[in-house]
């Protein structure tokens, strides 16, 4: 593990980059000040020693709001990807495992979900559930379900046909045992790579949604919402908009690079292929 990391500089960089950002989110209360405190006397200030990244239109510390925005972003996107993995991944694996009509129905359903433009389906789901961070997580999760289902079905079919699974069946292994001790371990690297890439995409979708006012609602700090607010005061002070945009970029970039580098390391055959 450590050897791999030092050999592959890009992967090493990606891991550090992601860990630092997750760390900033987790330890936000220790690192930054109060993201809600409004100091009217110092509104829309540029970066300074007191306010590392300046202040917003209500005199709130942009640095603190970005770190707490990281939390909202990671929590929402993380929940979404986990939901997609659990639901979509299980559906894909079970479809491959049981085949027949179950497989056909599930994959048809996935075709239908996949037919919607991602952002549009997410917006539709939020319209039904009401705009908040939780709805955004559910919406992004549902949108990504067919991606995991399709991704895991193919390799699962191959594994289920393989001799060692046949062998396991012959000695009387149960379905559950086959899934957990043969299917899942073999799919782990595919899952890890895709989860990281999807997390990167989910961070962007979440930011777009909260930019549109369909994600986390004020006063909860979120990066997209900061950008939307900052945009209204752009001519007076561009800092909140500029920094919150960089924050979204760094977060999404980190996970995409991580997924990309992981793909090379875990499966050299896939080197250079696209998502």
């Amino acid at each position, binding site marked *: 593990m450590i050897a791999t990391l030092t050999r592959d500089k890009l992967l090493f960089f990606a891991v550090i980059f992601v860990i630092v950002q997750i760390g900033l989110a987790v330890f936000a209360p220790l690192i930054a000040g109060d993201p809600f405190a409004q100091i009217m006397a110092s509104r829309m200030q540029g970066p300074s020693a007191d306010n590392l990244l300046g202040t917003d239109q209500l005199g709130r510390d942009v640095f603190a709001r970005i770190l707490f925005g990281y939390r909202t972003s990671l929590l929402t996107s993380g929940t979404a990807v986990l939901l997609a993995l659990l639901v979509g991944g299980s559906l894909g694996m079970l479809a491959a495992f049981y085949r027949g009509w179950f497989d056909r129905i599930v994959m048809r359903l996935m075709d*239908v979900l996949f037919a*919607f433009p991602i952002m549009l389906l997410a917006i539709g789901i939020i319209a039904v*559930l009401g705009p908040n961070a939780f709805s955004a997580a559910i919406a992004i999760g549902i949108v990504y379900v067919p991606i995991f289902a399709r991704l895991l079905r193919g390799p699962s079919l191959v594994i289920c046909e393989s001799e060692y699974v046949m062998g396991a069946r012959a000695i009387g292994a149960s379905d559950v045992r086959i899934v957990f001790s043969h299917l899942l371990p073999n799919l782990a690297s595919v899952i890890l790579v895709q989860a990281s890439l999807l997390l990167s995409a989910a961070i962007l979708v979440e930011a777009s949604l909260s930019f549109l006012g369909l994600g986390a609602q004020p006063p909860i700090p979120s990066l997209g919402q900061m950008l939307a607010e900052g945009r209204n005061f752009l001519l007076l002070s561009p800092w909140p908009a500029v920094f919150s945009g960089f924050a979204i970029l760094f977060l999404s970039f980190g996970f995409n690079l991580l997924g990309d580098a992981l793909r090379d390391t875990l499966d050299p055959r896939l080197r250079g292929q696209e998502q």
Partner: protein
Amino acid sequence: MIRAGRLLDLAIVLFGVSIIVFAMIRLIPGDAVAIMLGANTEITPERIAELESRIGLDRPLVTQYIDWISGVVTGDLGTSLWTGRPVAAEIGANLWPTLQLTFMSVLVGAVLAVPIGCFMAEARGKTADVLVRIGAIAGLTIPSFWLGIVAIFLLSRWLPGFSSLGYVPFFEDPLENLQRMALPVIVLALPMLANLSRLVRSAMLDALGQDYIRTARSKGAGRRRIVYRHALRNALIPFITSVGVATGYLLGGAIVIEQVFAIPGLGQLVLGAISERNYPLVQATILVMTTAFVMVNFVVDILYAFIDPRITQK
């Protein structure tokens, strides 16, 4: 070229999409009608009953679906809740900006990706690989709405006369139209361009390593001919599919970009409809945009079989 099986697939997907869109209003937790009313008026039992029968929520589900879908097929998408105008007319009024934005972005992204990808394929080696990779990932993960905002801000400083906001119909003033579309198109096309040019590069590198390239080389074909005639043709196969898929991202992305550039398109329509809880309008817009996306991918599938004769049917 179009087999019956493919048409059946298309029909099943469209049917499924219509069921999901139809189910939307019925899935709203709580009393959907009261929620819809709550946006604009006081809620009374009479008003609830009136709206319920207007949308048809008081009839059996199957009847509701059949009524709705037979309207949709004949172009009747229902009436907008608060304006009373036909939904089809509201969509029609907002359709062109979104279509133009999406179409131009697909065009810019796809057309530029081929030469950029080919160019990047010539640069091989470790450093080039890493640079291409980081560049492509950066292009893919840069929030396009942020890029749009920053671009508007910078242009307002450097080129105060350049109007980048709003929409002017093409046939009213083509130059003004193109000027205002320039920024949104570039911003929206960038992630697609990043993704596609990287795809073209890897497909080219792949194709250049094949036996038929060696054959072409050995019979003395020029470098240019090898790249564009032999390799590119084969590299285009995965490219075409990706363009189809990317159209969906762009349709979705257009919703956000329209907000940034104040373009009165379908994005504004659907977001406005959500905020005033005008669900029939939300439903219809989602249905129209998704159907368009499904049709684009259907055409791409046919093109695919056309370019690659090996694939006649899955």
